[in-house]
């Protein structure tokens, strides 16, 4: 066994979960070298601003860095940017990357997810997906030049992009395949209230509709054909149709994946099926759940890092997400798919299970949301 000062912690993925993993490991006493590998050319950065501030005409775009250089220096972490992990060998404890092979004594898998695209539309000029900072710059550039856009997917990302486009005075059509937007995330009443924000802001919302074709000219995108038979003029199409775990490099690695969600299977301590390999963030399927929330990604990163360093913490966190659409602040806390949905007016929708409050959706309702979040955090988690 190597001396603790020489044991190498390798973190694959330089997003929030990866950086929090480094902080968690250092806080729990990891003294050996730490390397973070990220496939993007930027310093570790935060994703929520990509579909908000980075798209706004009100400010020049900037990489929303997660930590200052000073903080990264204090953490004594080596960041390899622009390096992609290609394979993992859990037996010999090595990760093959585009910059060569890296050994590890402990490994944290935090490669997040990749934006879902539509097969017929991938690579078509004028069609964008949004996951990375560079994607966000491309969407921003497209919005700068657009008068009419079609946004596919009325989930949180699509809705934020729609909001950014409306703020620029662009004509927006929001196309949603489902009959009920946000169906998997929140109840029908709250979803209807959120969709009302779009229509009030002048967004044209088309549900149960898909894109069936794209017509381009020499100069770019021209028309978008919809499943309804309608044809729309559009300068750009932006996809916000979800993301799938970036697990391609884990094929045949011995790290078990969840067949349903495609994420890396882990227990509540973020341990995977392979020894000394942990996982955190959007890629992690923790006790059957991929949470895909910023707050969960950060906390999972911290716990995975601490456990890699010898702690025995369990991940537990009240689900929480926030968004801003058309100037309205939206907050989602706890379990929001329970059938018992009570609209309290003033933009606050409460969810109950067996009579107890288990979650809420708030529109410009931060006080009640904060109080409920506090109460839920103080309780032991419900049976899962």
């Amino acid at each position, binding site marked *: 066994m190597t001396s603790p000062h020489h044991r190498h912690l390798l973190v694959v993925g330089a997003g929030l979960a990866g950086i929090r993993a480094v902080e968690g490991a250092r806080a729990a006493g990891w003294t050996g070298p730490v390397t973070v590998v990220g496939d993007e050319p930027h310093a570790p950065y935060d994703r929520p601003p990509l579909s908000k501030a980075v798209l706004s005409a009100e400010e020049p775009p900037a990489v929303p860095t997660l930590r200052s250089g000073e903080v990264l220096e204090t953490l004594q972490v080596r960041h390899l940017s622009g390096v992609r992990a290609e394979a993992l060998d859990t037996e010999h404890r090595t990760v093959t990357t585009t910059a060569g092979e890296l050994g590890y004594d402990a490994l944290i898998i935090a490669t997040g997810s990749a934006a879902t695209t539509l097969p017929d539309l991938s690579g078509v000029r004028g069609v964008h997906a949004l996951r990375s900072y560079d994607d966000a710059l491309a969407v921003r550039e497209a919005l700068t030049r657009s008068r009419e856009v079609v946004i596919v997917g009325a989930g949180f990302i699509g809705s934020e992009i729609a909001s950014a486009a409306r703020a620029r005075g662009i004509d927006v059509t929001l196309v949603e395949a489902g009959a009920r937007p946000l169906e998997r995330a929140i109840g029908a009443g709250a979803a209807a209230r959120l969709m009302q924000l779009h229509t009030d802001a002048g967004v044209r919302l088309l549900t149960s509709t898909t894109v069936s074709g794209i017509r381009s000219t020499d100069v770019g995108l021209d028309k978008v054909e919809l499943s309804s038979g309608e044809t729309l003029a559009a300068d750009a199409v932006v996809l916000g149709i979800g993301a799938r775990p970036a697990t391609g490099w884990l094929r045949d690695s011995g790290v078990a994946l969840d067949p349903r969600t495609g994420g890396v299977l882990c227990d509540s301590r973020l341990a995977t099926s392979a020894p000394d390999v942990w996982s955190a963030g959007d890629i992690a399927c923790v006790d059957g759940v991929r949470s895909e929330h910023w707050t969960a990604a950060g906390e999972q990163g911290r716990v995975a890092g601490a456990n890699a360093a010898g702690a025995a913490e369990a991940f537990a966190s009240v689900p929480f997400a926030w968004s801003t659409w058309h100037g309205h602040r939206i907050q989602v806390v706890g379990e929001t798919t329970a059938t018992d949905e009570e609209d309290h007016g003033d933009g606050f929708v409460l969810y109950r299970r067996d009579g107890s409050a288990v979650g809420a959706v708030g529109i410009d*309702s931060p006080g009640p949301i*904060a109080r409920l979040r506090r109460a839920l955090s103080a309780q032991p988690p419900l049976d899962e």
Partner: protein
Amino acid sequence: MSAIQADKTVCEGIGMCEAQADDYFQVGDDGLVEVLTGEVPEPDHGYVKAAIDSCPVSALRLLG
């Protein structure tokens, strides 16, 4: 001793600070951060700094 500085014009009431250091931060009824204890003694520095660093909109600073 260090002092916490909160910028309410930037705060979005996300509450990461409260989740990590509820002796020091609380999201009030207006949805914005309230600093409950402005002075941070040395032994609490670590977790208060972590709470401050975790703010997604960088509304918090630790001075001194």
